[in-house]
């Protein structure tokens, strides 16, 4: 560990429970740690924060049936009240700009500021999807360049940029598979999905009209190849595999799986949510994958969670490319990049598209951010992203496996995620206590109770973002909380005690959610 201050002095926040100091504040605030009421409680429906001009005319008769009978119940806040409200709320939040966000399966990595600068260039930020394409050549060029590198990195034949997030990309991939079978005049109604799959996989398959059959896992957390082969047949449209899988393990039999599925005329969909672990190292195309979505908001560092829209381009194999959705970009011999849409698809020989996934071309702001990330890292940098992501996860795994059960730890290194379980904790202590204890330590908890195939799962994905020092801080906290549980520290059941709110009643919140503010009158 480095010591930031050689004198050893460190600022402290004071005791947690300030009521012990003999007084409580009238405001509920604790120094500069601010309490915050609902906007409805700060403002009132009678007040209005803006000064609207009185209408000069009575509304037209035709509109009369639509006139409101009562004023809407909106909180009337002044501008400074509104600004302060959201600023104060933001201080109660935890985000990737505040500290590590080790949510397994989510790849919460740093969003480089260079991405933001490029995305805000007027040529990208101030264009409209309905502008004539001749006036947005630069934006199309950037899309074509992004498409080129996504194809290059995955070893595939083409890419549909338009899907707006991971599950949307899954649907796009399955619709391509469906279109291909339809084109061949084949009726296939089953998609095989491993037990450890992301929940969205079976949901997507069902949404696309397929029956879902699950494939069991082997004892070492991978797809059971023999069980998969048993389920294969002329009724199987395809298989959805996540690689690396949700246990943080590489599917060693991926090529054998693909070959077996292809042998019966099925297609292989790969959930690319975990591409971060293999980018620059493994090309899914070489493993026999026919379609894979790439979460730009994971692997390619565009904002994620509440921070920004997702973007889930789908790379396609030679076999599925003809069915890919419109629109997409293509360069002609004269060097110009065109947007291929319904009215010019014939010219580009793309006559079998299954349709569209979106009204327009996709998330331009995410395309520019992802392309910036790729180009600023370069081929060697992207390879190092995968290496560091895997190294960091293995560091966490090996630093904590003496305190927390690591179900697949003994079998060898993990990929980008360290998986623990609560099976070695004493009676009455569970994954939930560890997660809540981490909040008191100032960290966002890891993903808990997922994947379902591991009891009390704790899935830690540090990503390549975290430095050695940052990882050591997290590990020290995780070890401290685990030790509290192992020692039977009763106070851990109350965690978090230092957060703005104590342990919430998640059951009540799920059973009787209160989603709408109701005023005294409207209540």
């Amino acid at each position, binding site marked *: 560990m480095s010591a930031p201050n050689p004198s050893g002095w460190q600022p402290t926040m004071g005791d947690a429970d300030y009521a012990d100091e003999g007084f409580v504040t009238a405001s509920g605030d604790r120094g500069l740690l601010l309490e915050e009421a609902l906007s409805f409680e700060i403002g009132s429906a009678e007040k209005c924060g803006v000064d609207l001009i009185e209408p000069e005319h009575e509304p037209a008769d035709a509109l009369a049936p639509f006139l409101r009978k009562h004023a809407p119940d909106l909180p009337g806040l002044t501008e400074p009240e509104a600004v302060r409200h959201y600023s104060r709320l933001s201080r109660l939040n935890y985000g990737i700009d505040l500290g590590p966000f080790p949510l397994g399966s989510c790849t919460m990595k740093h969003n480089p500021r260079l991405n933001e600068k490029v995305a805000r260039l007027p040529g990208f930020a101030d264009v409209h999807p309905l502008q004539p394409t001749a006036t947005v050549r630069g934006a199309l060029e950037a899309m074509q360049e992004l498409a080129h590198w996504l194809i290059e990195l995955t070893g595939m034949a083409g890419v549909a940029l338009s899907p707006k997030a991971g599950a949307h990309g899954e649907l796009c991939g399955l619709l391509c598979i469906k279109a291909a079978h339809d084109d061949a005049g084949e009726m296939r109604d089953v998609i095989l999905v491993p037990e450890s799959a992301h*929940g969205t996989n079976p949901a997507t398959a069902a949404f696309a009209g397929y029956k*879902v059959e699950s494939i069991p896992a082997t004892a070492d957390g991978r797809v059971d190849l023999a069980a998969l082969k048993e389920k294969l047949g002329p009724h199987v449209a395809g298989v959805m595999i996540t690689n690396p899988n949700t246990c943080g393990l590489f599917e060693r039999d991926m090529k054998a799986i693909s070959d077996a599925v292809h042998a019966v005329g099925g297609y292989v969909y790969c959930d690319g949510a975990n591409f971060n672990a293999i980018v620059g190292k493994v090309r899914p195309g070489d493993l026999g994958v026919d379609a894979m979505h790439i979460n730009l908001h994971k692997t390619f560092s565009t904002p994620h969670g509440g921070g920004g829209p997702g973007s889930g381009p789908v790379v396609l194999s030679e076999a599925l490319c003809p069915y890919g959705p419109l629109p997409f970009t293509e360069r002609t011999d004269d060097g110009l990049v065109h947007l291929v849409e319904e009215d010019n698809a014939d010219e580009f020989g793309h006559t079998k598209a299954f349709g569209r996934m979106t009204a327009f071309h996709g998330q331009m702001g995410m395309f520019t951010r992802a392309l910036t990330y790729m180009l600023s890292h370069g081929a060697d940098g992207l390879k190092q992203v995968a290496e560091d992501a895997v190294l960091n996860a293995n560091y966490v795994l090996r630093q904590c496996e003496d305190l927390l059960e690591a179900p697949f730890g003994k079998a060898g290194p993990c990929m980008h995620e360290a998986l623990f379980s609560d099976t070695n904790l004493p009676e009455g202590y569970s994954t939930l206590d560890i997660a809540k204890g981490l909040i008191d330590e100032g960290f966002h908890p890891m993903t808990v109770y997922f994947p379902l195939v591991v009891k009390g799962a704790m899935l830690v994905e540090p990503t390549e973002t975290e430095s050695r020092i940052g990882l050591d801080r997290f590990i020290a906290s995780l070890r401290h909380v685990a030790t509290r549980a192992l020692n039977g520290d009763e106070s851990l059941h109350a965690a978090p005690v230092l957060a703005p709110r104590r342990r919430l009643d*998640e*059951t009540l919140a799920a059973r009787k959610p209160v989603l709408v503010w109701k005023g005294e009158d409207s209540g």
Partner: protein
Amino acid sequence: MSRHFTKDHEWIDVSEDVGTVGITDYAQSQLGDITFVELPEVGSTVGKSDSVSVVDSVKAASDVYTPVSGEVVAVNDALADEPEKVNTDAEGEGWLFRVSLSDPGELDSLMDEAAYTTYIAGL
């Protein structure tokens, strides 16, 4: 009346070729607090081991598979307002749905209580 169990932790009580299905007490204890139960449609035809119902808990959403084939003849509507009944009385008031059996012979492939107790002890 006889009670049978599946490896997926469903139980079924059969009386006059109508089976009442729920999840076992062991299953509810593993899932934690149940927050929502999605039930099959009355009148729908189901095949043995089909996923016909979903039980949501604070930890996970879990499929419930029907132990037998047949037609769904009733569902436990009380669970809409009180899903917690699955926690408090999984093998009684927390039942999920009733199936009129199309092939009572399917019961032979299920476990009896003693076999199920041995099965979960080994998990």
